[in-house]
């Protein structure tokens, strides 16, 4: 044994390392539990540096932005002083204020107006898996964040929390192939589907029947049926909708991540909203009476149990009425062919005559 280990020392170490990791994998697969301690160590080692880097980047970018803004303002002031146009200066100033409005402010406004209790979080990193769309935010269990919570922006759904540590959390992005959310069409609230990510590019909406009405440009919102995203949260906008083999093939652009991801909102306590175009639940719908046969009020109704007449049925009735009015027996060669150009009522020779006297024993109304 000793000889073997000395002779094949390299191979032995490799085997031990591989077997140890296979054992670790088997343990995790068998128990369905994560080896949390190792992850906590790794996250604890990396996140402080990520925070420092992010803080450094933020300060540097703010410095340069402020510097260039100041340069721009100085030049602008020179021009405006030369022009002596105070009004233009004010307008320019206001325009600049609007264009440089901080994204955090819009989040804050949305946070105040939203019924749900949300927590603002800052994105500080990604997952190391290049194929996964997982982001790291600077809020964790210390901030009441829990696994499974929804993550949104004012524009829409961003993802959901999949892993929580004391001060940071991992968010599974809406683009990730493992992401799914229950959505409903804003235009046709009866159209329900499941939003799924595909790694890159647009997301898809699955499980929508071909018979359902979905058009490019339609917007989908969260239906709330997945018990994660508050009902009414914008989800995506359809770009492609076509009939497929197993159902409609719908591709859409996710709404929440279109403007980049610097700050997000974690929904601590979600409150379901309404779907904008959906009618109230108990609204009565006014329906007209079914139309009667055209111009045949006094003619026989086909014995179809009240079914609507087709054009052919109406032609047959019209022909029979003309024949009856001109005393023609269809199928007999004894009577001449009727004049089909005359209308049925006008061609009735009896219509011009006075009504016959009632038979004895009867009463007229």
């Amino acid at each position, binding site marked *: 044994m000793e000889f073997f280990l000395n002779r094949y*020392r*390299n191979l032995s*170490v*490799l085997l031990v*390392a*591989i077997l140890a*990791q*296979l054992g*670790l*994998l088997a343990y*995790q*697969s068998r128990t369905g539990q*994560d*080896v949390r301690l*190792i*992850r906590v*160590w*790794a*996250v604890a*080692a*990396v996140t402080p*540096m*990520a925070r420092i*880097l*992010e803080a450094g980047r933020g300060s540097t970018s703010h410095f340069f932005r402020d510097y260039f803004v100041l340069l721009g303002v100085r030049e602008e002031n020179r021009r405006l002083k030369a022009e002596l146009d105070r009004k233009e200066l004010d307008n320019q100033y206001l325009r600049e204020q609007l264009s440089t409005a901080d994204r955090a402010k819009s989040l804050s406004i949305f946070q105040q107006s939203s019924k749900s209790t949300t927590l603002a979080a800052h*994105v*500080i*990193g*990604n*997952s*190391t*898996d*290049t*194929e*996964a769309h*997982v*982001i*790291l935010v600077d809020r964790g269990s210390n901030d009441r964040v829990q696994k499974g919570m929804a993550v949104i922006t004012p524009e829409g759904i961003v993802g959901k929390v*999949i*892993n929580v540590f004391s001060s940071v959390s*991992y968010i*599974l992005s809406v683009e*990730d192939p*493992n992401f799914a959310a229950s959505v409903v069409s804003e235009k046709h609230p009866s159209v329900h589907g499941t939003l799924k990510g595909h790694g890159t590019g647009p997301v898809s909406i699955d499980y929508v029947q071909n018979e359902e009405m979905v058009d490019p440009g339609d917007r989908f919102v969260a239906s709330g049926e997945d018990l994660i995203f508050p009902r009414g949260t914008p989800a995506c906008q359809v770009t492609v909708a076509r009939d497929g083999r197993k159902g409609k093939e719908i591709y859409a652009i996710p709404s929440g991540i279109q403007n980049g991801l610097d700050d997000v909102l974690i929904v601590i306590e979600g409150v379901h909203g309404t779907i904008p175009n959906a009618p109230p639940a108990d609204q009565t719908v006014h329906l007209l009476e079914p139309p009667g046969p055209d111009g045949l009020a006094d003619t026989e109704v086909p014995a179809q149990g009240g079914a609507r007449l087709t054009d052919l049925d109406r032609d047959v009735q019209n022909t029979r009425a003309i024949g009856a009015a001109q005393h023609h027996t269809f199928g007999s060669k004894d009577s001449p062919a009727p004049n089909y150009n005359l209308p049925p009522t006008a061609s009735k020779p009896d219509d011009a005559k006075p009504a016959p006297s009632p038979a004895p024993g009867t009463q007229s109304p």
Partner: protein
Amino acid sequence: MTETPAAFHESARKDRVSKFNWISLVGIPLAAILFQVYVPRFVTYLSYLELPLLVTVYFSLARRSPITGVLFGMCVGLAQDSLSPQHPLGMFGIAKTLVGYFAGYVSQRFEVENSGVRLVLAFFFYFFHQFFYWFLRSALLSEAVSLELGQTIVLAALNAAVAVPLFRVLDKLRITE
């Protein structure tokens, strides 16, 4: 004409075993992982740059020892696994352990200071790593993932192109005696 024995070449190669201080050995892999965690947020296409893998290959080649390669690859891989919450621990670990072993093994038999050799090795090990990672995901986790050969080859070439200057920079961190 005198012939130099093979043992002489072997010993000469082993004499060129590079040494690094502990700060480099810990700090460089950590920086590589941090790069992967942080930088793709701003430059998305840099997410395909597998710096932890390149660092593993470099240290395994420089140390010229399969055992060091195994341990180094395992540590870097497990650290990478820890920051990838979607998969269980061990996926990157096993793939990088194998890369470290074979890189250490190759370094004992070839002259790995040459830029051309490094380019080829970086290309090969990137492809090997991606293939093995895909194999583990398909075989052990039963995930329906496809290995896109064309894309993998292009990315292997890009990583190899980055590896050559990166290895030159890392050469500067060697301890000279």
